[in-house]
């Protein structure tokens, strides 16, 4: 009869304070063209796009248990679909970004069909093989430059939606305005990605996803359709990764198969970011991408030594703090910026009266 005297909340005090801090940060980021120079805008663009790739890989590997090493297929195909739509059909590059996402999903369907027959390491290798096949096939596509690649046509660059307005608004040259446009799109994509994944993980489906990752059989026993769950997150991750790939190469304005399907740029770095930051947490890739950016801007001049240092650091973190830097911070302080764990408040639970 009596109403339950408890409430279920997921928020913590830190997460609410963080909410205000986040709002301030977002305002500052949106206004970045006012206070940042062009180099800094490009750096921020790099950080945001790597964050998006890392968030989607974290969704796959950290929450879905799908350790794919073939996400560069979706970066590359998304980028090439955007270039193809611009060059072949004359589509404006900005809406063509969406086509990149669509193309990635179209590739993800057969990829999932074959790769989902494999588990663990075999799944990882299978996705990699499929990604390399995609690279080889795209290299045969002569309209977009075959193996040597091509640039975004001059007229397409000039006509890009919004560039003129931005150039007039900030009184800058068209090239700089294109960077601002790409940056704003990346910021919007990053916000949508983090917010979307957060909403997903807080929902009923988030719990189901965790259940599938923990134990497929037991998840089925409580009514979770594990197969559908895996399919959906694989397709969602492909869509987001494809859009991000298209955006990266829109900013780049030049594409080649080896760069677009680079396993180092779009996979090794992304895994590094997620592992360093903390796999299976939304905060992980955010911490990871900042660490990665600092390392890259200070050490990348050392070439191969830099890559070896990254590898050593990743191994060390995996051994000492398997849940990443954010795992260490969170364990020490109990901080949760994106709380997804539900908590009960109000100690006494009302007695049921018969």
């Amino acid at each position: 009869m009596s109403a339950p005297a408890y409430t279920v909340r997921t928020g913590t005090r830190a997460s609410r304070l963080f909410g205000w801090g986040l709002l301030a940060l977002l305002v500052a980021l949106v206004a970045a063209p006012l206070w940042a120079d062009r180099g800094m805008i490009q750096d921020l663009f790099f950080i945001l796009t790597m964050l998006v790739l890392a968030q989607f890989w974290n969704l796959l590997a950290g929450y879905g248990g799908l350790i794919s090493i073939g996400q560069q297929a979706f970066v590359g195909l998304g980028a090439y679909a955007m270039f193809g739509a611009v060059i072949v059909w004359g589509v404006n590059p900005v809406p063509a970004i969406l086509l990149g996402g669509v193309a990635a999903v179209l590739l993800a369907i057969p990829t999932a069909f074959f790769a989902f027959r494999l588990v663990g390491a075999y799944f990882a290798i299978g996705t990699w093989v499929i990604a390399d096949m995609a690279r080889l096939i795209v290299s045969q596509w002569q309209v977009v430059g075959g193996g040597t690649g091509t640039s975004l046509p001059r007229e397409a660059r000039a006509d890009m939606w919004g560039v003129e307005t931005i150039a007039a608004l900030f009184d800058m040259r068209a090239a700089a305005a294109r960077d601002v446009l790409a940056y704003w799109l990346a910021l919007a994509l990053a916000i949508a990605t983090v917010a979307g994944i957060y909403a997903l993980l807080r929902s009923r489906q988030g719990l189901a996803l965790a259940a599938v990752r923990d134990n497929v059989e037991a998840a089925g026993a409580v009514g979770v359709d594990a197969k559908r769950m895996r399919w959906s997150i694989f397709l969602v991750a492909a869509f987001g990764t494809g859009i991000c790939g298209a955006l990266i190469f829109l900013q780049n304005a030049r594409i080649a198969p080896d760069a677009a399907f680079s396993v180092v740029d779009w996979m090794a770095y992304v895994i590094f970011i997620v592992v360093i930051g903390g796999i299976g947490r939304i905060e992980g890739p955010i911490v990871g991408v900042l660490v990665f950016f600092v390392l890259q801007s200070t050490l990348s001049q050392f070439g191969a030594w830099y890559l070896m240092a990254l590898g050593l650091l990743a191994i060390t973190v995996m051994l000492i703090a398997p849940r990443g830097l954010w795992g260490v911070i969170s364990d020490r302080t109990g901080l949760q910026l994106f709380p997804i764990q539900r908590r009960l408040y109000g100690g006494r639970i009302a007695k049921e009266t018969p």
Partner: protein
Amino acid sequence: MTALLETSGLKAGYGDFQALWGVDITLAEGGCAAIIGANGAGKTTLMRAITGVLPCAPGMVRLDGAKIGGQSVDAIAKLGIAMVPEGRKLFPSLSVEENLRIGAYAGRSGPWTLEAVFELFPILREKRAVPGTSLSGGQQQMVAIGRALMANPRVLLCDEISLGLAPVVIRDIYKALPRIREAGASVIVVEQDIAQAMAVADEVHCMIEGRITLSGAPGDLSRDDIHAAYFGVAET
């Protein structure tokens, strides 16, 4: 009285290895059946076939007369057959409360809510925020039972819920069974402990090598009958 759950000529196995050779059992609405048998008799395989983990022909398992054999695990769960798996199989990354909440995923309404489970096993209310796998064995078993109840099942399958637990803990867990039945679930318990099975069930089925060798109400079966059926000893 019509049978709620019925298996007829149920055959199932693992690849080339056939583990069940035509099992017929019926569970009446509101009833409690016990499956007893030694290790390897096929008890767990029977549970796995009923819940859809192992494939079988549609007509071999019926719920309320409808053929459900061989449907997918999640589809069968949504029909209201919930299992407390052997070894509990809690989700290690989820808290006690989340483990219970995920049990309600199938979206069936009924008497079992988070609050009702906390009433049944009060210790879980205290432990609700800790990871499920950090609890003692008995408490984990309570979480596993609670998780299955959250689905508001019509049929609750309990696979060896006393395995590896101290007798006093087993008694506590079995004390919950009458309340679970009162709330409307029909129950099948799989047990190696014959005395425990005889105490709670109104029908006992004994299995050897994938076949039912003896069935009957506990009061009608003599110790010798069960002994013979359990160990496969030829009657003299």
